[in-house]
């Protein structure tokens, strides 16, 4: 079964450069400083941000704040039931990637000796999980009022016979298809995260990157609108 049909449609009926529906809710978890719920089609992610607070002494940095991230998937999120929702190699890798990405997004030097905790949970995983987590975290951080360079947006792109396809679903995330996850700030040129799965021909690299960058900009537009709308609802009634 080919990924792009002869008429130019993908398995779920999208065009190659079309992203899935983005659906979001912000500020759901009222115990966290910031929280978000984000859907990319059938990929559904919950994110909560706690802090900055005085965290563990072992994690403390004198010149900037520490960022601790936990990526987890529910046992029922994938095709097979998982026994370990977190702590396995794949989740740990995802956590580290998110940590590194957001260390360069958040203005960490404004909170020395503090810690920010980020918790991402994939409720339903249908491809582009890491990208969805980056997007959800960006929104949660914006909700928490944490200083950042900008809202980071991410997208996963693949390439089929020289043609880029964006925002992959789990059926498209096969072992053969090379895929790149890219995250940029404000949909501009500043890249905070790149990850490559499978082997990619060097000639295809620039094509995929361009497609991914354009998709990041598209996703950013969606996130920016949501964040701004939410902020208005956040302002206290009769605030000073």
């Amino acid at each position: 079964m080919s990924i792009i049909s002869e008429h130019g449609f993908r398995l779920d009926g999208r065009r190659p450069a079309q992203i899935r529906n983005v659906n979001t809710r912000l500020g759901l978890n009222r115990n966290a400083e910031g929280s978000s719920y984000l859907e990319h089609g059938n990929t559904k992610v919950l994110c909560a941000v706690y802090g900055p607070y005085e965290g563990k002494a072992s994690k403390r940095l004198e010149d900037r704040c520490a960022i601790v991230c936990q990526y987890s998937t529910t046992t029922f999120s994938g095709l097979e039931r998982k026994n370990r929702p977190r702590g396995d190699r794949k989740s740990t890798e995802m956590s580290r990637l998110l940590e590194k990405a957001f260390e360069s997004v958040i203005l960490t030097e404004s909170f020395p000796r503090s810690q920010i905790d980020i918790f991402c949970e994939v409720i339903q995983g249908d491809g582009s999980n890491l990208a969805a987590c980056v997007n959800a975290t960006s929104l949660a951080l914006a909700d928490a009022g944490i200083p950042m360079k900008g809202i980071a947006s991410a997208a996963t792109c693949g390439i089929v016979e020289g043609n880029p396809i964006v925002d992959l679903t789990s059926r498209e995330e096969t072992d053969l298809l090379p895929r790149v996850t890219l995250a940029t700030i404000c949909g501009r040129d500043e890249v905070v995260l790149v990850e490559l799965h499978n082997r990619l021909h060097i000639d295809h690299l620039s094509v995929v990157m361009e497609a991914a960058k354009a998709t990041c900009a598209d996703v950013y537009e969606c996130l920016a609108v949501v964040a701004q709308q939410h902020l208005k609802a956040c302002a206290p009634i009769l605030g000073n």
Partner: protein
Amino acid sequence: MSYEITGPPLVSPWMMLSMSEARNDVDESKIVIPGQSVCDAPQQFMRGHGTYIRDGEIVSSLSGVVQQLNRLLMVKTIKQRYAGEVGDVVVARVVEVQAKRWKCDVSSRLHANLPLGSVLLPGGDFRRKDVEDEEKMSEFLKNGELICAEVQQVQHDGTLMLHTRNNKYGKLRQGITIKVPPHLIKKSKKHFHTLPYGMAVIIGCNGNVWVTPSLPETTLEEDGSHIHEFQVVPQDIRLTMVRVASCIRLLRDYSISIFINSITTAYEMSQPYDIKELSEQETSSRLAYLIAARLLQELQQQK
């Protein structure tokens, strides 16, 4: 069999109120998100708090509201952790007893310090704090105990220094704490209030509200320990306290500013309902709408 996981409701109940027409106090054009440009003509302005320069353009680093002071542009966050200011009344929890100081959680980004020299001990201000006092520190205030204090100093790294050198500050014993986001607390001259319903509230600037039968007045024994005076609180007072506490939670849930006026308004308007009804969505949303309308009306009359 297939299952579909659906997301949370499109609009949370607490957002309904904030998104209604009653909201005309927020200027949408001034709301910015991180990475958004703050002004059109960057050469004419200086960048202030919450902004940075990207490609010669002044850009917000926070999600909040743009404020202008002459030529200075700054962004003030709407929602944020507590950032202390000198003179704030805070309700804090002791988390650690260290040498010559207590570490207190004030839901700020760093724990606050309460030095041994800044607490009221018998003998007045001129009493010297000696080794004996240091040894008795954990008897005086233990981990997990709640205190009411004033911010004396903000250090350069953002740590708050507290003091309780007044009878009205000190350990809190019988009452209810309600945690609310600090941005909902409206600062005023007075944060200790005795309500006419036979009870009192302390509205901590750090977002902890303390509902208590009577305002604390620290009285100490000769040896420096607190006098333990747990009293049986009559049931009607207890019910009033619970009602006030539910009202504060309601204000929090619908993001209405918390200050003495909003608490008393909420309390009086909640009278037709049972206390348990206040936590039900249907009642609370109706009541919150009425409270907000009343408060806005009062505000307009003042103008």
